């Protein structure tokens, strides 16, 4: 919206920002048009009314509430840091444990009894002794024989 020259002068006057020359011009415009002068007075009153109505403070103890909130956020930032650090350390620990388990599994496979070729890999990994139904029966039989011999 393009402002008229009169309007610009009025706005400058409201801001109390007229040069001496502009002030003289506005004065002569007011003399020529009382309506313009009335308009200026209405705008000036409106401006003063708005300025009068301003709120200039929050509720009492505002600074206390800001500081309390800030402390809360700082604590929360600390908690976040702690949580992130905890998660990070957990990942490192989990990786290390996984690596150890893999190493142990590999060791078990390579050190397993090669004579029992039919032993499943998983049993080798967790280092179970070679075991089958026949082997189990043989083991039990041997155990009984051994016990009987000892009893006799």
């Amino acid at each position, binding site marked *: 919206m393009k402002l008229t020259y009169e309007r610009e002068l009025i706005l400058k006057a409201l*801001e109390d920002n007229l040069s001496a020359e502009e002030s003289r011009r506005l004065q002569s415009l007011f003399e020529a048009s009382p309506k313009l002068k009335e308009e200026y007075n*209405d*705008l000036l*009153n409106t401006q003063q009314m708005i300025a*009068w109505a301003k709120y200039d*403070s929050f509720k009492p103890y505002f600074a206390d509430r*800001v*500081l309390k909130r800030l402390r809360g956020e700082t604590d929360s930032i600390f908690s976040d840091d702690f949580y992130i650090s905890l998660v990070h350390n957990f990942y490192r620990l989990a990786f290390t444990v996984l690596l150890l388990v893999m190493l142990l599994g590999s060791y078990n496979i390579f050190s397993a009894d090669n004579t029992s070729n039919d032993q499943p890999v998983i049993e080798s990994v967790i280092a179970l002794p070679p075991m089958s139904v026949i082997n189990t029966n043989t083991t039990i039989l041997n155990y009984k024989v051994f016990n009987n011999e000892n009893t006799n």
Partner: protein
Amino acid sequence: MSESHNPSDKELLERIRNKDEGAFRLLIERYESQVAATVLGMLGNRADAEDIGQEIFIRFYKSIEQFRGESSLGTYLTRIAINLSLNELKRRERKNRRFLFIGDHEEKEQLFQSGETDELEQKELRELIQEAINKLKPEFKAVVILRMIQDYSTNETAEILNIPIGTVLSRYSRAIDKLKILLTPYIKNHEINL
């Protein structure tokens, strides 16, 4: 000695950078009225307006290193206040689009037209003036707050809002016309202790 009782902004900033909570409290107390005038003017005297007021100081504290002193501290805080208030107004507008309540709005409208100004207490009058400001669009409201309430010049207002001077003048002209229409009954009929 007097410096320690009433430290300059520069001293306060230095102390705040060194995590001096007392200095930050002083800064809040020093600029509370300026920030309150902006935020409460933009958003009205509501509980969420104080939240924005708190947010302004907290943001400033957290990003204090970004303040290089190119403008005064008051102007810097006012700029943050205006930006956060405009964001809040946008948020409210979005919310209002979803939940449109018009009852309270209509009641105030009737009050404006009733002409019963002599019976209004000054507190109520203040609320009515705030209601008139609230009728302005956010970009006009920002100009009114900076020019009329904070008493910034047209140039300073343009700088804070990052808009041309001509735009400030144009918005100011339209805003004050609308406010004049809304407030004229009170200007003529009600005595205010100016």
